[in-house]
């Protein structure tokens, strides 16, 4: 998705330096990241630090690059032809774009949940077990079953599906399918969980379930969530990053972001003056 001109009158300043955690090094640190779809530059010199065990929300109008940026964090953009990355993304101080990086290992550590739920046409059990099997996490059947159960419990889906693990995942409702995809991502116990508008296609009840889930998961995981819904960002996140036209405008604690943002652009967007 190339950058769309949301509001031509806006001039974007250089990205604000990101706040760091209390001296400790960030889980994910991004330095001067540029991203191109062919000749179109979608991200402009993004620098950002994501501390461990927090929920960070990315907000911004459609086409501002927040999804693209999210997908650079586990190199999902690699599968799109003619894309190019500049700058660095450090996961525990290791550059994930370094030639020595094993992409498969990276994606095991940085899981992802997509906007549209994408269960495989397999049984519920096999969906959750897929990541465990391909990564050869365990060879014992009982341990596999245990990990699947735990993942489904973590995703708050166990009680609804425990009696029909062998039925098709496609028989689940939309909200259940999305929680299944979360369970699938959690089963391999990633360190970072990327969520690309995970609730945008769900009704309010399913959405609130997913949000409660995010709140619980924060204890174990570092979560980055892209959302169109600013109330959602305000509800679930500790830190919020605002993107506009491929640039990072502001990163701040969510509370501050929604009450007294540093940047005029952020305030304009949050108060609904554009976007």
């Amino acid at each position, binding site marked *: 998705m190339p950058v769309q001109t949301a509001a031509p009158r806006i001039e974007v300043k250089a990205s604000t330096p990101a706040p760091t955690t209390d001296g400790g090094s960030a889980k994910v640190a991004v330095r001067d990241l540029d991203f191109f779809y062919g000749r179109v530059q979608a991200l402009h010199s993004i620098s950002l630090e994501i501390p461990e065990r927090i929920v960070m929300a990315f907000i911004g109008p459609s086409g501002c690059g927040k999804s693209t940026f999210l997908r650079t964090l586990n190199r999902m953009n690699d599968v799109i032809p003619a894309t190019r990355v500049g700058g660095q993304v450090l996961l525990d101080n290791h550059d994930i774009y370094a030639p020595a990086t094993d992409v498969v290992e990276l994606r095991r550590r940085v899981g992802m949940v997509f906007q549209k739920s994408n269960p495989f046409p397999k049984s519920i059990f096999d969906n959750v077990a897929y990541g465990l099997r*391909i990564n050869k996490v365990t060879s014992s059947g009982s341990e596999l079953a245990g990990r699947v159960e735990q993942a489904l419990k973590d995703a708050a889906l166990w009680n609804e599906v425990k009696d029909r693990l062998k039925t098709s995942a*496609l028989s689940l409702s939309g909200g259940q399918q999305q929680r299944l995809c979360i369970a699938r991502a959690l089963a391999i116990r990633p360190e970072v969980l990327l969520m690309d508008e995970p609730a945008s296609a769900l009704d309010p009840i399913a959405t609130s379930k997913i949000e409660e889930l995010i709140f619980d998961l924060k204890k174990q995981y570092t979560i980055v969530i892209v959302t169109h819904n600013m109330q959602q960002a305000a509800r679930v996140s500790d830190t919020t990053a605002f993107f506009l036209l491929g640039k990072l405008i502001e990163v701040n604690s969510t509370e501050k972001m929604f009450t007294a943002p540093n940047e005029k652009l952020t305030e304009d967007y949050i108060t609904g003056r554009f976007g």
Partner: protein
Amino acid sequence: MATYGNADRMRRATSGLMTTLTALCTLLAISALLIILSHIAWQGIGSLNFQFLVDRPRPVGEGGGIGNAILGSLVLLLISSAFGLPLGICVGVYLAEIGRGRVGDAVRFMVDTLTGIPSIVTGVFVYAILVIPMKHFSALAGGVALALIMIPIVARTTEEMLKLVPHSMREGALALGAPQWRVILGVVIPAAAPGIATGAMLAIARVSGETAPLLFTAFGSRFFPTSLNEPIASLTVQIYNYAISPYDEWHAQAWAATLVLMTLVLGINIMVRFLTRKKF
């Protein structure tokens, strides 16, 4: 209600005319099929009995049957499937998942060209590369000729079916740390399996009716097959040989063999329908 004006009446008349016209065309096409089927059944059913289905051909006046040809056709289908299906599916996977840009386009063009090659040419080609070096006709050569016809059909249907698998499913698997080959084998192909099976069955149904490529390769035989390395009978070649013979008895047997062949193809098509029902 209001009365219809002239324009309205005109429109309704045109609409009625066009509906009738399309219905007539449909009827014409379907009746051709029904006439062929009923004529074959009418002509063939008289000579059809259990002995005919299991016996081998005998000299004129002594009855005989097409048991060896039925078996031969099945053996040929088996050989051609063993070569043609895996190769065709692999080409389809390459086209859909791996081959991008110019190389993929070139391969796709060649596959389409292969589809258009007259089957007699395929037969002569296999005659040149297999029959002549081996110095005799064989079931193997016949199977290879049929396989060459199957490959492009299977390849293109497989490609189309794989392209129907949503991209999000591939990304879902990749995001779990699956390497590309595992994504293709474990997620994409199973998701497209019913469609791939349809393509395979259609290809089998298509080659089961082929005569020309077998004339120079499997050749035909009046005996039950004992080895893949010798000529083998097939329903189509048997029908051809009997139909051009001067004997009324053999003509009747050709009709009966045609009925058997039609039933076989119909059976395969019904199996396709059965396999393509949605399971998940």
